[in-house]
């Protein structure tokens, strides 16, 4: 199968004001491809260009140079704009600012209504999408009375109702409390594992990225690292160089290595794995 998202030497520079010096490119010569069914986390600290990258996936921005292909469609081609957005749905940071209607199910129905589907089909998709995020019980509720995590799950359902092939999420958990974050992460993981949904998750939380199948690290608009989470997070020095703290488990093992010269592998991403590694080390 061809990749769902493909970037070929993509750069993007934000337009600058008259007479001002040109700003450095927000995304600098990035090439990558995302295969169907993958769960890719894009990591980077503030200003690393990760949010700009997300906007390029959805034709909200078009690259200054290079090409973005969504399921083979070039985002520069305005006649395909609808199909592009239908293929790669987008979830934003603030759940409040992406919910349109005063009733949950009406909001989830927004995209299929715009697609001009018959009302029976809309009903089917709304019910399916709400079930997929576990919010069926709330379909007649007013969104402003829901918690942050619930609102974000409604926003995800709103995108699912388009039946996209991939979902791009731009820091969907950044404005949520820990409970809400866990709730949204569970939903994302389930969508990826059970429904085979391709997910691109933009985040600056290590523990969220650790749950993905593949991690891309951005720094100053460039793609710095690309690989499996265990592989990426063991490169402690590179992570620190782009102001990212490695996951706590890896940080602990790294500290043991430095202070005691223990020579432990830095691949433990869960607390259990980490405990195992230390246990074996202590046993001899």
């Amino acid at each position, binding site marked *: 199968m061809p990749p769902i998202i493909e970037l070929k030497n993509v750069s993007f520079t934000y337009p600058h004001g008259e007479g001002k010096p040109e700003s450095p490119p927000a995304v600098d010569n990035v090439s990558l491809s995302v295969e169907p069914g993958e769960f890719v986390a894009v990591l980077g600290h503030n200003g690393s260009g990760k949010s700009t990258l997300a906007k390029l996936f959805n034709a909200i921005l078009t690259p200054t140079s290079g090409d973005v292909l969504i399921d083979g469609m070039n985002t520069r081609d305005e006649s395909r704009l609808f199909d592009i957005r239908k293929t790669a749905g987008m979830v934003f940071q603030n759940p409040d600012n992406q919910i349109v209607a005063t009733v949950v199910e009406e909001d989830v129905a927004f995209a299929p209504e715009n697609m001009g589907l018959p009302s029976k089909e*809309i009903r089917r998709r709304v019910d399916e999408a709400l079930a997929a995020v576990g919010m069926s019980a709330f379909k007649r509720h007013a969104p402003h009375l829901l918690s942050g995590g619930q609102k974000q799950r409604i926003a995800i359902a709103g995108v699912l109702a388009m039946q996209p092939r991939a979902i791009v999420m731009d820091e969907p958990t950044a404005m949520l409390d820990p409970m809400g974050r866990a709730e949204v992460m569970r939903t994302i993981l389930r969508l990826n594992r059970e429904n085979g949904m391709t997910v691109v998750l933009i985040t600056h939380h290590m523990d969220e990225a650790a749950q993905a199948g593949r991690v891309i690290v951005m720094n100053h608009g460039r793609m710095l690292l690309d690989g499996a989470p265990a592989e990426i997070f063991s490169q402690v020095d590179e992570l620190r160089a782009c102001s990212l703290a490695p996951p706590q488990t890896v940080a602990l093992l790294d500290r043991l290595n430095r202070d005691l010269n223990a020579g432990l592998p830095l691949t433990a991403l869960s607390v259990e794995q980490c405990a195992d590694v230390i246990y074996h080390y202590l046993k001899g």
Partner: protein
Amino acid sequence: MLKDITLGQYFPGQSPIHRFDPRLKVLMVVAYIVALFCADGLWAYLFCFSMLALCIGLSRIRPKMMLRGLKPVLFIICFTAVLNMFYTPGVVLWHWWIFTLTREGIFNALYMVSRIVMLIMCTALLTYTTSPIALTDALEYLLGPLKKLRVPVHEFTMMMTIALRFIPTLIEETDKIMSAQKARGADFESGNLIARAKALVPVLVPLFVSAFRRADELATAMECRLYHGGEGRTRLNELHFARLDLLGGVLTAACVAAVFVISHFWA
């Protein structure tokens, strides 16, 4: 505390009044208002009142709630009553300074007041029994012909929906900003009216800024969900005209006709 306001004052229910097609309900209210203004004479008024009472009874909305709807217009009601009582020429009952109470005046005042009360009550009944979304859908449909004259009907109703959606969000935000300002020593409660209004400026500025930011983000999110105006848009809940609606429509028409007959031929 501000979070508890009910949106558009809608009380969900399953009564026939609730289940009427919202388009029909809007038309029924219009017809009823026309009937009210055509009504003349005690019997016509009594008939109008019993129609309204029947609808309120059917809707199961508590009469107390209906009366609450009158509160904001209490001043207008009193004003109308006084003006009509003292400034209608006719048989003088009582006279003092510039006030002349006439028998016709008292009748006029009673008619006018009951007309206003019934008018407010029937519109209140509409918003109490119809969800804001159904109401905007109905308006979009009924104003549909204006699209031919290039009136942006869809955009107008979309604006209404979004406004309704964001009222609680913005109220919450106002609450937050006010708390933040209070924490830094702002005083919203003391001083005269002008001082209090001035104290609100530091609340309104950040509120406006954030409202614009929200609008921008919402517009992007809507575009990402394929919004492209009203053209080719379908609805999750299509409005449909049922047998109940036909019955309601016919009954309303009959009642309006009855008001005409009572007012102009019977008396």
